[in-house]
């Protein structure tokens, strides 16, 4: 059987790629894709832990279902806001959206 640590390493790499995407990309939609990668990394983590540590329990499964449901809700609200931003600013590039500053 594949050791648990392999799953955790894959998840950590996936999470790292997601964080890089969020921080390096300028386009809002690309940032959202990075966020999705982060959430997916968490899903891999949770399901691997569930399968290896408590395969008879249901907590891990419930956790996973709730994570992807919430992630979907977050993306839906995000895209709606991006459309509003695009209408006002004519761009969804984070560098252009900078009215508020100290």
């Amino acid at each position: 059987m594949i050791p648990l640590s392999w799953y955790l390493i894959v998840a950590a790499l996936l999470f790292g790629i997601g964080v890089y995407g969020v921080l390096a990309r300028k386009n809002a939609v690309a940032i959202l894709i990075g966020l999705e990668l982060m959430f997916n990394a968490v899903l891999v983590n949770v399901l691997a832990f569930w399968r290896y540590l408590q395969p008879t329990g249901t907590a891990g499964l419930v956790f996973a279902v709730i994570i992807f449901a919430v992630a979907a809700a977050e993306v839906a609200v995000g895209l709606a806001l991006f459309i509003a931003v695009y209408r006002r600013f004519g761009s969804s590039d984070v560098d252009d959206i900078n009215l508020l500053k100290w």
Partner: protein
Amino acid sequence: MSALNSAMLLALLPELMVLALMGLVLIADLSGRVKGRNLGWLTIVGLVVVVLVSVSTAMPDATGAAVWGGTLKHDALSFVFRMLFLIAAALTVFFVLDVPALGDRGAFYLLLLASVLGMMLMAMANDLIMLFLAMETATIPLYVLAGFFTGRRDSVEAGFKYLLFGALASGFMLYGLSLLYGFSGGEVEFAALAQGLSKTQAPTWAVLAALMIVIAGFAFKVAAVPFHFWAPDVYQGAPTPVAAFLSTASKAAGFALLVRVALVAFPSGSLPWWGAALAAMAAATMTLGNILALTQTDLKRLLAYSSIGHAGYILMGVVAATKLGLTAVVFYLLVYMLTNLAAFGIVAVLERSTGSTSAANLAGLYKRSPWLTLATLAAFLSLAGVPPFAGFVAKVWVFMAAVEANLAWLAVIAVLNSIVGIYYYLVVLKVAYEYDPPEDAPPIVVSRPVVWALAALAVFIVIAGVAFGPWFGWGKWAAAALFP
């Protein structure tokens, strides 16, 4: 797993009633029978009914019980916070009623209630899954509320930034939660998590790192350094009543959940450096918040930095991790919520009358609207912590809690910060009282509901500062939930 019984339903009665109220507002809005600000009145009446019914029927024992399979905790701590969120939401609606394109929209009230529902669940959450779910239920509607003025660039930008930072923070927090879930051997309930972690095979540094990632999520929620940077931008761009709600209820909900995680899942001494990290965060938060507030010229940004400073003071009570500390946290949040709502309410009045939230707009307020200036005096001096206002008593208790927990150095930093704080609050009052109003100053128009809300809040600020006994008693009762 137990079958559904009446105790479980009773524990969740306030939430179920809020849910019913959401349905009622939705139907009233869609049917077209109830229009404009009447929807707001419906929300206010509904929230008051929820509070009254809950207090008379759903009151728990101090130590309470875990319900719904251990997912939720129905105890004094969660109950006090749930009532506070309901009251804060009702007061926010008072400030919203007469704002065009906000107070006449059913969607606004629906989203506000959805967020309140999430906050109430945050106060009750007793495991990792509910922690995450409740936090997102509270936050996702707030993204929309911050960007509610889709025709205004600053509002849309505020919603956009809040969403991006918020989603990033929850992504990180979730990663930390998944690691804690694994390190504890598959436990999710806070108490079981603490036990699981005490005999974990994972190295201590890994557990500490996972916990720190989770704390980062909380720091975002309560706007604590170094995850505070979103707050000034979002408060400034968001509709002012939404900023009021964000800086009070949303912050308090973060703390309601944080104290449970910090005291139940990670009792002090369970991990090395954990208390010290929280203490350092408290010190950095109050210092940075207060110092950056000094240079602000916009009232909403000023209040944003001031609210960051207050998050630092409240964190101090969390760091103390004693009964007095928790009592002080609850009392401070109660006072802070109502005071800050008053402060933002005043800013909302100014914004409506003069069209901007610049501090210069306050010039000669004393001559233009003496009563509003008196409310400003009460709110800002209470935020500054000047006796006899409530903010003073709240600060004294938090400082005492820190000293009692051998954190005198933190209390000293906090006292120095309060002195810095007094300066910028007094500058605002100086502009209001000393300066002459400009020639073409528009008249200050205060609508009837706002008058009632501000008057009630100002009276509370004075009463709670002079006779703090009963309110402090609530804090004690709430603290008894975790320190019987």
